[in-house]
Each structure stands twice: as C-alpha cells, then as structure tokens.
C-alpha cells in the first residue's frame, strides 16, 4: 500500500501531492526527484532512499510516484500507478502537464476514490464516474496537438503519432458522448538485419486495444481469424496465424477462443487492452535497408543507404525516419538526397554525430536513397572509423496494415437495447519497435 502519491512535472515541480498515511517525511517529492536525476538515463521504476520505497512510472513526461514504508508487491504497485494514469487519461482525455495543472482538483477527486489509506479502492473508470463532481477543463486545442507529438517519442508505445486520433482523446465525462467503440490492432515490429540485409532476429508484439464510449457497457463478442492458433510447436509449419503466446484483460472471457476463435468481453469505460500477443516466427519485413560504405581516401568515407518499401502499393506509410550514427571523429558530414526527392529531409547533427533522414510519406514498392559524404579529423583513419558507423535504426508507422494477418472478423454487441446501433471503428496500425540494421 502506498503512503503518498504525487505527480511531478519533468522539471520536478509538484503538480499533485496526496499524503494518505502520514507515516513518511513530507519532503519525499524532493528526495525522489534528486535520486531520479542521479541516473544517466531514465531512473529505475523502483528504488529506495533511506528505506523509503519509491515506485514510479513516467507518462507524458510526468513522474507519477507512489511511496511506501512497506515491502510492496512491485508489479502491483506499478500496475496501480499505470491504472491511475489511465483513469486520468479517461477523465481528462489526454495526460500531460498542462492538462494536469488545469484539472488538479478533478485529479484529487479521482485519487480520493481510487485510494483510501493507500489501498486501492474503486479503480474502474465507470465505477468512479458517478462519484465525480468536477468537470474536466480542456486545454487549448493547438497546445494539445503540440503536447501529443513530442519530438522524441519514448513513452506510450502504442500511441500513434500521425493518425488523427482526436476521437479517442475525449473525456468519459463528456455528456454529449456518441455511443461508439474504437478498436485498434497495434503491432510493433522488432527486426534486426545484418549488413547484408539478412534478418538475424525478428518478432512482433501486438495488442488489441479498445476505447469504449458504449452506453450501458453491453457485453461484446469479438471474432478473430479462423486459422488462428495459439502456442507454437517446435518445427511446425502452418499457413495460419500462429501466436507464440498471449494474455487477456480481466474483462475478457477466452474460453471459446480455441473452439471458435471468439472472445467474450464485458467492456469497462474508456481505454483498455483486450489482448496482448507476441509472435516470434518469420514474416516479411515491410522495409529493407541496404547500406554501402566506401573508403574514398584515408580521411573520406561515403555512406550510401537504400531504403525499399516492400509492401503493397495501395498502402502508404505515414512516415519513415532513419537515424545513422557516424564516427565521433567526424569533422564534417554532407547528407545528399536524390535530385527528385520529395517530402524528404536529411540533417546532420554535429553534437550527437547523427544523420537524421526523414521521409514524410512512402508508398509501398517505392525505393529511396541517401548518400552521406564524411570528412574525418586527422586523428583517425577511414579504416578504423568505419567501424563506428551504425547501427542504423528506423522508425515508422504504417496505417491500415498488419504483418501478422491477425484480423477482426466481426465485433458484435450482444445485448442491444432499442437505441441506435453503436458505431464500431476498427483500425490497424503497424509501428517500428526496434528496427535496426547493423553494419
């Protein structure tokens, strides 16, 4: 159980601070922030300072922190904080500093119902909804867009960057809410190529996520592919969709999955993940990278990278970014695009020694290429420096495309009253998780 829960801004200001048990010092937010800053990267989610236990998650740049003097169940404490973050998201629409500052009273209300004396109480959005008296205050529209698209996207893995997902960024408290449900099939690809474009390692991590604004939370029936199979036998070949393993949300009854590939769902309000799955088998990677490195002279190197989009021409990747680390001893680097390049940029960051190649839209079947001319400092020769080039990492998103071929056959609302037929929106999104080519 938590003693306190507080939320800090990226700079360490306290936005929310709730003390449930009054059994720890009041200075814990400062203690936490000081400790968190001692890590070179992100702080460990769980650490102790002077026998005070800190559990935290980072969402939208904010630190959501729970403290305790007890030996917590680590997964439970982090899941609780994650649940709290989702509640805040459900009520406020999005989670970021501005929204939290504007809605801090509402968040205190949520906290008050979610925890008593540090123990989790009502934590489902639909349970808390009738107890909440404050209305959410929406931030300025343009600032939402800014905060939604952070430059470096490290968190909220399954938040799409480009698709207009305004629809799901709404508060569940919205009175004029349409009766509808959003279903997203997200797949994150993890591919590792060696320098000859041969795949060394690949896997897919996917999930079916729903955001429900259905009135009355009617039970749902979700049908998946007929050729779906869960669990991979050694050396087995099958034409169907094989998931290595999967798990389900509390509201899901998966008893019929093996028999007729359907899931029964008792949907809560707001956002939840119906099912997570992972696939380790082979699949054809949507992008291929072909790097070529040439030593022009002892101080000059030329790197040429070809990128090929190996998917159907009807499909359009909404963006594809490529990052190429170049040697520390580089004096200068000139990235050159093809003459007819459109909606493409390439920039050299001399501090980080990285070339960023950004492609706005890329149609299936197309090929792009980039040439980087490097001049080295006198202290290093091209022969040793070329070892420092790479690995090349890719970031992309392809809407309406999925690699696993996992499909939603239908989504049925089982007990429909006399009201109108609720809208059901289904989207497929494929993103890169770790898409790397080594040199």
């Amino acid at each position: 159980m938590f003693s306190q829960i507080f939320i800090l801004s990226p700079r360490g200001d306290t936005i929310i601070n709730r003390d449930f048990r009054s059994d720890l010092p009041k200075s814990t937010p400062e203690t936490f922030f000081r400790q968190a800053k001692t890590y070179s990267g992100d702080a460990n989610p769980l650490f102790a300072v002077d026998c005070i236990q800190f559990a935290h998650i980072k969402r939208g740049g904010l630190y959501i922190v729970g403290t305790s003097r007890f030996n917590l169940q680590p997964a439970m404490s982090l899941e609780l904080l994650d649940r709290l973050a989702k509640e805040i998201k459900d009520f406020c629409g999005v989670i970021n500093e501005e929204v939290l500052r504007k809605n801090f009273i509402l968040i205190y209300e949520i906290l008050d119902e979610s925890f008593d004396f540090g123990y989790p109480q009502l934590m489902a959005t639909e349970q808390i909804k009738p107890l909440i008296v404050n209305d959410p205050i929406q931030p300025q529209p343009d600032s939402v867009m800014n905060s939604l698209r952070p430059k470096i996207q490290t968190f909220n893995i399954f938040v799409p960057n480009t698709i207009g997902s305004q629809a799901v960024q709404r508060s569940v408290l919205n009175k004029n809410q349409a009766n509808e449900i959003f279903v997203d099939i997200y797949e994150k690809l993890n591919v590792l190529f060696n320098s000859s474009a041969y795949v060394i390692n690949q896997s897919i991590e996917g999930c079916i996520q729903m955001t429900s604004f259905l009135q009355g939370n009617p039970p749902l029936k979700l049908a998946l592919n007929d050729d779906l199979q869960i669990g991979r036998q050694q050396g087995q070949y099958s034409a169907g969709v094989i998931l290595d393993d999967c798990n389900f949300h509390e509201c899901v009854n998966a008893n019929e999955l093996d028999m007729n590939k359907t899931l029964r769902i008792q949907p809560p309000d707001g956002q939840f993940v119906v099912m997570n799955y992972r696939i380790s088998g082979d699949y054809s990677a949507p992008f291929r990278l072909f790097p070529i490195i040439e030593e022009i002279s002892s101080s000059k190197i030329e790197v040429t990278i070809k990128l090929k989009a190996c998917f159907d021409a009807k499909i359009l990747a909404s963006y594809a970014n490529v990052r190429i680390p170049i040697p520390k001893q580089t004096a200068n680097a000139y990235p050159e695009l093809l003459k007819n390049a459109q909606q493409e940029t390439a920039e050299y960051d001399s501090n980080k020694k990285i070339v960023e190649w950004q492609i706005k839209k890329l149609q299936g079947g197309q090929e792009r290429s980039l040439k980087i001319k490097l001049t080295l400092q006198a202290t290093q020769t091209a022969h040793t420096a070329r070892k420092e080039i790479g690995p090349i990492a890719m970031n992309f998103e392809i809407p309406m495309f999925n690699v696993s071929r996992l499909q939603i056959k239908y989504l049925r609302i089982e007990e429909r009253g006399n009201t109108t037929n609720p809208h059901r929106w289904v989207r497929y999104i494929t993103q890169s998780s770790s898409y790397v080519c080594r040199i």
Partner: protein
Amino acid sequence: MRPHYASSIASIPPPKQQQYFEGNRKGEVNELKILVKNTLSEKDDKKKREVVKKVIAYMTLGIDVSKIFPEMCMASYTNDMVQKKMIYLYLTTYAEQNKDLAFMAISTFQKDCKHSDPKIRGFALRNLCSLRFSGAIEYLMPAIRESLSDIDPYVRKTAIMGCVKVYYMQPEFLSNIEEQLYKMISDNDPLVIINAIHALNEILAAEGGMALSKKLVDYLLGRLKEFNEWGQATILDELSKYQPKDDKEMFNIMNLLEERLKHSCSAIVLAVIKVFMNFTKNKPQVYEQVITRVKAPLVTLASISEGNLEIMYTILCHIKFIASKGYNQVFSQDYKCFYCRVDEPTYIKLIKLEILALIACDFNLGDMLNELGEYVTDVDQEISKKSIQALGAIALRLPDLANAIVKQLSSFITLQDYITNEVIIVFKDILRKDPKHIKDCLEIIQSDSVTDQNSKIALIYILGQFGSQIPLAPYILQTFIGVAESVELKHALLTSCLKVFFCRAPEMQEILGQLFYSIMNNENEDIDLKDRAAFYYRALQNNPNEIKKLWQNGIKVDKFLEEQNINKEALLFEFNSLSVIYEKSVNKFIKPAEYFNNLRNKELQDQIQEQQQSTTAEKPDPVQDGFDIEHDITVPNVPIVQNQPNLLEISEQPKQKLIIDNFVLDYRIEVEYFESMWTSLNNGASITRTLARNDIANENAMEQLFNRYRLYNIAAGEEDNVLQMYFYGAHKCQVFFEFEINRNLSTVLLNTKSELEDYAYLAQKYVEDFLKQSNLIV
C-alpha cells in the same frame, strides 16, 4: 515556478496590493486568508469554488496554508459538493496542526455521515477518519461502528479503512474489532472483503496477519473472479502464505489458478507464480515443472506490457531472479527475447544484459557473443561496460567456452579507453579462476595503458600473478612507482613487485628497491603501507629464501565467489516483493514505523527553525483559545540556539526564553520510558503557586492547555480533590513535568526534570508563563 502555477489557475482575481513582505510566502498566505474570509459571505458558488481551489493549489505546492483553517472550517457548511470535497481535503491535511480548531469541523462531518445519500455518507466518513489527531477519536468510533453495518457497501468499505486509521492513532479503541472484521469477509461486496483482509493484516501484523483456514481459502478462491485485479492479487498473496494439507488439495488449487497465468495484469501473474512456488518448494520435481510452465507468460509480459516499460522491468527482474536460482536453462531457448532494442531505456537494457549472461549456454553462445559484441560499441557507456561484464560472467560460468570470449574481448581493447579499462578488470577475474588464458591476453596487457583506478589495480594484479610469463612485467610495474596514486593501488603494487621479484630477481631487484625507497621516504605516506614495506624490506634483508617460501606456499583457492550459490530457500520466500528488484533481503531496506516518525519529527523541527529564522521580525499570530485571553501570548522573538546542546555552553546560564515553536509538535514517548526517565533524573526545578481560577482546574482543560503549548499528557489521576498529571515535551532535549493542583489547599505545584538542568529551568518558566496567561495562577 510557483508564480507560474498560481497564474495558470484561470479567473482568480489578482491579489490585492497589501503585501506585508514582498515576495514573502507569508504575505501571500495572509492575503489568501483575507480573500477566503471575504468570499465566505458570497452567494455565488462559482466564485467560492475558485477561491477554495486557490487554497488547494497553494497546499499542493507545499506552501503552509494552515493559517486559513478557521475560515475553511466556516466554509465547510456548504451544500455544494465541489467545494465540500476540496474543503475536506484541506481540513484533513491540516487538522493535525490545528487540533483545537478541527473540533469545529467535526460537526459538519458528523452531519454528513448521516446523510441519506450513501456516496456522501461514505465520503464524509472517509474524511472524518482521516483527521489525524487523538481528540477526534471519541467522535470517530461511534460513526465507524455504525457505518460498519451500513446498508451500502461503499460506506462499509470506508468504515473498515477507518478502523485501520484508528488503529494507527489509538489502537485501544478498537477492542474486539477483529471478530467483526472476520465476519465481514463473508460480505456480499468484494471491495468490503478486500478491505477487511487489509485491515486484519494491519491490525494483526504482530501475529503475522490474518489467519487462513482451509474453509476461508476455499471460500475466497470460489469467489476469486468477483474481485478486480488488485483484489485478486491481494487474495493470491494471502494464499501464498497458506500450506495445503495434502497433495490433492495443492493440485486442486493449482489447477484452479492455472488459467490466471493468461492474465494481462502482471500483478496477478506474479502472485500466482508465488503461490505455485511456495506450494511446491519442498517438491523439487513439481517445482521444476512449475518454473517451466510459468516461463511463457513471464516472457510474454516481459516482451509487451501495453507499452508499460516499468512493468516490463519488474518482470525482467523476476526472470533474472528465477534464472539466477539455477533455472537458467529454462530461458535459454528464448534468448532472443532478451536482446536489447533501440527504443528501450537504459534500466531495461542493463537488466536484459544480466539475464543474457545467466542464460548463455553452448547452443546459443555463438549468436549471443555476436550480439553482446555489438553492444560493446554502443554509444551508451553504461551498456558498453555492462556487456563486457556480461561476457566476463559467461566466461567464468562456462569455462569450456571461455577461450572464445577471451579472444573476442581482446579484439575490443583498442577501441576506447573505457572499454580497455573494463576489459582488463574482466580479464583479472577470468585469469584468477583459470590462469591458462594468460596466453591469449599477453599482447593486450603489454600493449595498452589503462586509465581508470580499478583497472590499474587489476592490471597490477595480473602483472604480479603472471610475472614469469609476461616479458615486460617488471617494466610496466616500474611505471607506477612514485606516481601519485591511491593507497589501495600502492598496496597492490607492493604485493605484485614482491611476487615478480621472487621469480625474476635480477630484473626486479632495482625496481623493488625504488619502490621501497619511494614508500619509506615519503613523509605523508599511509602508515600501514609504510609498515608493510618496512616489514618486507627487513624480512628480505634477513632471509630472502624464507620469505619466498612463505609467499609461494600461499593459500590455494578452489572456491570462487562467482560459484557460491545464495541460499535458495531464503530468497525464494521473497518472490514478488521488492527484494527481487533490489536483490537484498527485507531487513536491508525496510525499517519500522518509529524510524520514520523520528524522521518526520526532525523534519518538523527543521521546518519550525527555518520559519523562526525567516520570520523573527514578524509578529506571530495570536493563538485562538478558549481561555479568555485577549492579548497575544508573549513570545519573545529570540533566535534559536543553533548549536547542539553543549554542556559547557549551557553552564553559562542561557538567558533565552523558550517559545512554543521550540517544542517538537506531536512528540511521543512511551509510558515506560517516561517512568524510567522520571525516576532516574535528578530533581530539576520546582515551584508552588496559588490557584487563582477553579473553573478550568480539571484534567481535560489542563490537557488541552498543555497540548496547545506542545506539551503532552502521559498519565493523570485525581484523588481527594488533588489532581495529579504528568506531561512531557521536547525541544533541545526532553523535559518532563509533574503537575499537581490541590484544590483543598488551593495550590499548584510544578516539578520539572530534564537531562540538562538549565533546560528544566527554562521549561519551568515557559509553563509558568502560560499558566499565568490562562489566569490559572497569579
């Protein structure tokens, strides 16, 4: 940052220009107080809401707004739920510091506890129970007892939590509550059940928490799916303490729980695994089956946790824990799942590297060496170092494959300084265990210089140990002599030079001489090192052969640190706890409540001192009280003695007067402690005065009076019109009082004792002053 926040709360009128102190928080708070007072009479709820909201905003920022307490109490008589919720949040936060005034608010809470709407009943009760001061108890208990049998589960579950709150304030008020709580486990509402379990675990913590019978276990398991995720995790955690009577029962429970492993909530999956592990810990075969069975769900959770990297980290820690307990081969097939990904934070990559080091085996080593080799050149130095350490750990664990690793590590050595440094340290460990690898390291050791302190020591160790095989050993050692280095390094250098001397005396003699000279003729040298050098020097002068024999018959090492297995049983018990994450046993990072109470008291004390310093110029606020004093308490603005109590200094008769803020708020001691101190201390100060006022000369009023001045009652008794009370408090040191009102003689007697007599005297004056002010004495 503070002004920025205040300004972000839209539509609040800007503060009036009445600041007493520019930029002083106190000024802002005073303004706010006036603002709240003025808005109280307003009819417009919207306006009121904004003002109350502002108070909460200040509170959140950590600004002490406790001064507005009386106004906020007044404001609590509202019917507007939005305001009420905020005001209650305020009241519960500051009640501790405003005990006397908090009574004002209690009546509102009590009224709301009887409201027809269960939501409001529960809400009021929750807040009433959160008022943290002892005086509230007498109002609290009747409300809790009544609410425990309320018709609405929301109120019942709140009442149970109320019991826990009371338990931490005054446990004696909870007599026989356990029985009722046990009964409530059969409630209809799952949350009531869970709260009852939590409450029993806290109240019965000394006896190991709630008692689990077979009947109770069957009952809870039967209803398991009615609970939410956290409820299930709680019940499963309870279950892990249970021991089934026989195998049949054990397998029944395990079969029942198996499908829970498919849950996407990691808290449930880990809790189930803990149950399985604890059930089967004495049945190695079944235990191993359990580990094999839980592998897939763990790997799934570790690969994808809905983008929840923090959970992923926790799961990885648990995988590492299982792998390090001798079940590493279970995960060997899935090694690719533990490859690092570009978008992962450092903390995940580091734990993955540790797992890879554990699960490496002959069939995956080829792939893994390539992969780890890639990480060595990672831009993140931490990752680079960790991957070198991982390679070293694999070499130590799998001696047959060490050769390939040593060769691979050798290829990194010219890349970067930090890489070379780390590789040398890893080499030292590998060579310590298996000296035959020296052949492959030779070139590296002689070709490169290392920069880091620990790496230098590692290098010196290697040179000493393998001096006979490294041609350049004496000359590399020579480069360290006389250079400003740490004592630790010089100790290593001395040892290594001696070792090389015994096998290559002609080359080493002069170098060793230089070393002795540089150590023994250095005035500032560490005394131990000097001693050691002098000892060897004389021993060598006396009989070099004898000491050579001594050295060469050194202790033979056949057990290595890396091979020692930590006690499996002891750590097993702590699965699904922070022990797994920190890799420490519980007593290393958990302290009892008293420890934190001390921290809190110290914090309060510091805060008071800080306030004192910043406001010495400011007149303190009048303390409201019921003793008809119109004037302020005379609190002289004396700066606090900054130094720690020092007998010498104090013997110079401190002239200062004590003021209320010198005393620690809510200082608490045990009766036994008081008794022992009272009997052991010398008589301090003592006064007798004439009783001037009879109406307040009773136990309750006196306790309140002393309380307000931060002196606390520990015992009281009345006999034949003589009231005797004992108080205590703490400022620089503890003070203890015996206080007696003799109504027959109309006298007031006060005895004061303290470890430092002068402080007893000062405290005596302090009490006398406030007794005078309350007109109890003249």
